[in-house]
């Protein structure tokens, strides 16, 4: 049902008769910095724009399906990209499809704009040679694709092969090609799907993150996997994938925060090869992850108090240097049924000027109605607003009874 939530905003209140509570032990999926580090230069620049005024807000929530356990994204690929030179396109570029109806896109790269005529592009498959126009159910140029919102380069040509064009080994040739092109082949109905995921969605700088490429259709197997990681500043590094006993491939990488830029993400790319009836099939997959700097962490204690019926949880922070830090947490309380229920999400940000500080989460008295102890603070997070990097995350942060 559509409801109107109240938003409470207040400045950090003085805490009367606070009781000290200790953070719960972290769980396996939590992110807890082992030690603090000095911030990077990029973060220093962003810090100059930060507001010093503390803000604390909360809104009621009544969702019973919250899940504070991070779940890294699983990318699934039925496609590949390959950069080809004009000489290759003149001679013909070979590739394999595993299902009929593939989408083929050719985009000029490197700033050159050399649009191709679909009537001049030849597609050889199943012993026949047809023009792209004749072999396709649909053809679209850059103008049409851009009008549809697809931000393709000038000169792009895309076509969807007709079902009659079949599958298997194909050769695409463009005698009029000039310069370099990106060949992108997507097979919407293929069952050969390569997955790629990281073992976490956020990693602290100088800590390892592992990527895993899988092909689990029970028919095909990954033969070769290579890859790269790309940082927001353009830095890239090779990923050394090795085969696991189950046929998947894994690679581990340790990022350097010097290449991070605010909330922009890093990417891991896997370029894979497998076989389909003896023909090589390429699949490329990518996923994203964030790299944070451990410029602060929860000190392990909190002061819990009530002020005019509102509940305050002041989290103690230890920091490597001054910044504006943001704390958030979902308060759970015990209902009349004796079970814990989500009550409200509180978010607070404040300037921590020294090596230690405290940030107060405030839950309004109205949101506590019909709820009683014991309380829990879940999905507890600490963010450095200089980078918006997620520094610490605990699925179960605090339990208290007052």
């Amino acid at each position: 049902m559509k409801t109107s939530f109240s938003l409470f905003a207040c400045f950090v209140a003085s805490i009367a008769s606070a009781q000290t509570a200790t953070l719960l032990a972290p769980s396996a999926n939590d992110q807890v910095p082992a030690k603090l580090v000095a911030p990077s230069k990029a973060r220093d620049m962003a810090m100059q724009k930060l507001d010093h005024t503390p803000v604390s807000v909360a809104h009621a929530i009544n969702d019973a399906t919250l899940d504070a356990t991070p779940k890294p994204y699983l990318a699934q690929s039925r496609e590949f990209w390959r950069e080809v030179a004009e000489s290759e396109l003149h001679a013909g570029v070979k590739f394999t499809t595993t299902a009929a109806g593939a989408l083929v896109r050719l985009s000029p790269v490197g700033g050159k704009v050399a649009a191709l005529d679909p009537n001049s592009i030849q597609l050889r498959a199943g012993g026949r040679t047809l023009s792209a126009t004749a072999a396709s159910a649909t053809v679209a140029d850059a103008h049409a694709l851009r009008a549809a919102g697809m931000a393709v380069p000038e000169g792009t040509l895309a076509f969807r092969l007709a079902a009659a064009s079949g599958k298997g080994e194909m050769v695409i040739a463009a005698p009029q090609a000039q310069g370099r092109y990106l060949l992108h082949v997507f097979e919407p109905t293929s069952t050969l799907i390569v997955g790629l995921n990281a073992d976490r969605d956020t990693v602290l700088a100088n800590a390892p993150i592992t990527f895993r490429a899988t092909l689990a259709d029970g028919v095909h197997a990954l033969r070769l996997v290579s890859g790269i990681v790309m940082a927001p500043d353009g830095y890239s590094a090779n990923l050394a994938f090795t085969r696991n006993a189950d046929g998947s491939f894994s690679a581990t990488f340790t990022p350097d925060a010097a290449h991070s830029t605010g909330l922009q993400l890093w990417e891991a790319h896997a370029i894979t090869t497998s076989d389909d009836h003896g023909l090589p099939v390429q699949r490329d997959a990518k996923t994203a992850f964030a790299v944070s700097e451990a410029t602060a962490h929860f000190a392990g204690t909190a002061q819990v108090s009530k002020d005019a019926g509102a509940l305050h949880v002041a989290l103690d922070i230890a920091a490597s240097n001054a910044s504006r830090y943001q704390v958030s947490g979902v308060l759970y309380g015990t209902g009349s049924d004796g079970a814990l229920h989500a009550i409200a999400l509180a978010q607070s940000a404040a300037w921590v000027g020294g090596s230690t500080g405290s940030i107060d989460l405030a839950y309004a008295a109205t949101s506590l109605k019909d709820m009683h102890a014991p309380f829990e603070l879940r999905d507890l997070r600490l963010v450095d607003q200089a980078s918006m990097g997620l520094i610490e995350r605990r699925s179960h942060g605090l339990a208290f009874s007052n």
Partner: protein
Amino acid sequence: MFRMLARLILLLAFSSAMAKTTGVAFVHGTGQQTDAYDNYWQPAMVNSVVQGLSNPANYVVINCDFSQYMWASGAAGCLATQLTSFITNNHIDDMLVITHSDGGNVMRWILSNPTYDSRYPAIIAATRWVDAIAPSSAGTPLADAVMQGNVFESSLGWLLGYQNDAVRQQQTSWMAYYNANNLLGTSGRPALPKGFWDIVGTDVTYAPWNSDAYCGGYTLNVGLEITKAWLASCADGFIECTSASAAGSQWFYDYNGVGGKTLSHNQSRRACFGLDVVLRNDL
């Protein structure tokens, strides 16, 4: 049904309280706009919707640079500036926000991060709810398709923004990260502080003999025929239904809201098939 009930509850609440000053804000999607009234929404859409206001002058059409990341000063910062001016100058205390496509992500950034910018809490407080038309809440595979090429180009292309940052942000893996860490309202995450009601486009009509293909401009729908092939079967040509439904609550699928018609991604920002009347009646 839920939405109608909720609307009734809010109306009852308002009638028992002081009179509210209602206004509506139109928030465009990806790209830099300087005249979104004419170029993005078009007058037929805006002028029809605002007839639902007691004072039809209480509206603002946002013009920002949504080629930037949602949190950037040119995106959420610009949106906050224009919404704050609208709220202040028109004494708006009951604001409905109508977003399209990536505009939903920029508005969701504001709703999700009240401590990031000192103007956000007042904007959130003034907002009744958001009508999110075809929001790219979980990104779009089309963004993945055009961004992947950068890996094979020079790193300079990546660095200098061969594609704009908003396209990069709307890659599915990127939006998965932001939904899990920086945005509220998706499955498993805390709810947004205000309602976020999704209008979901399910298909594209592009056959030249079908008059429905011409609403919003036929040429704009032609490209959607092939872009739809990159997407799941339920999609508006740019956004998959699962993405448009990923955050907040579903208001309606197009065919349930506009007389059995479907709304392509271009049609859902235009006065097509009575969508403008549906939005008008929601005010």
